[in-house]
């Protein structure tokens, strides 16, 4: 069956494929992944209990803590010699979430990414400017292999050096831009600085993901770059980019490639599955991955699912743009940041008080993170240079851990508001 057939199947046809794959997956992980078997045994569910898609709810959830507890390879379902690539996200307190891929997983990833690109009208002959970061982050390489699988031309430019990127986009005749939405706006500013306009480029479409963005931001990207901008969704734990994508005709939501990634929406408090149309936490089960399958993985992303047919003809269920998180993770310039990581760094600096606050704002098109640190008498000095050294040290250590530069603001004691219960560590002033 080709992509087009799968993506336009009647729901019942798709659901029978999903069920077959789910059953095979559950038998396989019960057999190959001891932590999963232990959880299933504890929940009193056996592989043969999965007789319909509705039985999915009998399976236990998987959370980021499960990934952390089994760091680095404890949830892999294949021997390491079959794993041909690993990626990792920045985790809390220095421990990353590690994901692995077999040869078949890499081929699957390329194919789901190619299908996503197709939804945005990308074809052979397109010149695709891939400005997602390359490296342990899944964005760059995930998109890269999808572009190649599709047969389009990839420019593996990665992030940074906007002026040079603008020159390449113009000289190479880039037709498609892949980047975070905030970086797209950054490139638009670089174009303006270079005195060029969208008319000097052949850009047609922008595929933007890896951070939350609003409809207003979409309009801004479209206007400033003279393109159609579409949303893409993915996360390393599930596969990377290529989990869901907006088509050019959609009026609402991204098509989930649900022949591979089975979605649910659950109530984040009761964990009960919610019907289509209701808002809750997005949960995925990977139906076809070999090395790192996940059962009912709680993404912490808040969304909704819709299943009405789309004008493009696809019958795949659609997910709304992610509107928030059920945990305290921040996404700053595409990088996942947990307040606990910031806290870990601060507590490691001698004399620093446990009172801090993270402020996030957007200056121009870029996210800016400021960390407010209360200054205590044991680190206070009457010399400016001593306090400035302290700021620099905190900044350098945060950069080391998170990979992004934060502004450090030293503030007076007790100036950060104390709360009765859970401290309010984050003030997010970004208008998404």
């Amino acid at each position, binding site marked *: 069956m080709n992509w087009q057939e799968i993506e336009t199947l009647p729901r019942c046809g798709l659901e029978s494929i999903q069920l077959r794959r789910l059953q095979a997956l559950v038998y396989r992980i019960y057999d190959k992944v001891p932590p999963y078997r232990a959880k299933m045994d504890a929940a009193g569910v056996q592989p043969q209990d999965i007789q319909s898609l509705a039985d999915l709810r009998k399976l236990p959830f998987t959370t980021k803590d499960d990934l952390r507890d089994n760091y680095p390879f404890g949830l892999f379902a294949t021997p390491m010699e079959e794993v041909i690539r690993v990626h990792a996200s920045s985790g809390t307190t220095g421990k990353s979430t590690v994901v692995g891929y077999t040869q078949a997983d890499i081929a699957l990833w390329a194919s789901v990414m190619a299908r996503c690109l197709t939804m945005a009208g990308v074809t052979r002959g397109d010149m695709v400017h891939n400005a997602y970061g390359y490296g342990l982050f899944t964005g760059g390489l995930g998109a890269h292999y999808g572009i190649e699988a599709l047969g389009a031309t990839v420019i593996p430019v990665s992030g940074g050096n906007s002026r040079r990127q603008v020159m390449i986009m113009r000289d190479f005749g880039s037709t498609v831009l892949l980047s975070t939405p905030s970086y797209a706006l950054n490139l638009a500013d670089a174009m303006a600085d270079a005195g060029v306009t969208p008319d000097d480029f052949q850009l047609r479409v922008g595929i933007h993901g890896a951070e939350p963005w609003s409809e207003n931001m979409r309009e801004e990207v479209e206007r400033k770059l003279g393109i159609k901008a579409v949303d893409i969704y993915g996360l390393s734990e599930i596969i990377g980019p290529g989990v869901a994508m907006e088509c050019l005709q959609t009026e609402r939501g991204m098509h989930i490639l649900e022949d591979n990634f089975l979605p649910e929406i659950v109530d984040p408090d009761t964990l009960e599955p919610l019907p289509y149309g209701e808002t809750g936490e997005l949960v995925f089960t990977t139906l076809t991955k070999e090395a790192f399958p996940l059962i009912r993985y709680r993404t912490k992303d808040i969304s909704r699912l819709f299943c009405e047919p789309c004008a493009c003809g696809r019958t795949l269920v659609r997910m709304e743009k992610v509107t928030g998180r059920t945990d305290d993770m921040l996404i700053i310039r595409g990088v996942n940041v947990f307040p606990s990581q910031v806290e870990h760094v601060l507590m490691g600096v001698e004399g620093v008080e446990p009172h801090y606050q993270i402020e996030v704002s957007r200056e121009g098109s870029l996210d800016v993170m400021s960390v407010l640190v209360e*200054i*205590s*008498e044991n680190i*206070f*000095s*009457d*010399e*400016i240079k001593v*306090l*400035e050294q302290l*700021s620099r040290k905190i900044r350098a250590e945060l950069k080391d851990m998170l990979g992004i530069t934060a502004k450090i*603001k*030293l*503030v*007076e*004691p*007790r*100036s950060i508001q104390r709360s009765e219960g859970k401290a309010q560590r984050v003030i997010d002033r970004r208008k998404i």
Partner: protein
Amino acid sequence: MRVEQIAVFLENKSGRLAEITRVLAENNINIRALSVADTADFGILRLIVDKVDLAKDVLRKGGFTVGKTNVVAVEVPDRTGGLASVLEVVTEAEINVEYMYAFVNKSGSDAVLIFRFEEMDKAIDVLQEKGFTLLTGAQICSL
């Protein structure tokens, strides 16, 4: 021959300096000399007052971060070249000045230079050797 100075951390927001001076006034503490050093993000207020320990106490109770440091007060005639003559001596001795500020004595004939040196003892020795008048805290307060 050291003078006690208190330093207060100041966030760059309006009303903080006013708050400090209000707390001092309410406790009958007299400011003899002061300077504010500021950066884009914060400032440090340095004060010489008549009741050092009380000042430190009440400011701390008022929620401020307060430090106490020692500085050197040099009295020079209030005329051209007064400061230059002191700096010439410390430069000669290769002593770094961390910061300084100055005020003119009420009588109009002398100026007082407040220094924070990197090597405080060495600076005191050198200055005394060269015949400069160093003031104590009590002397400053009685000026």
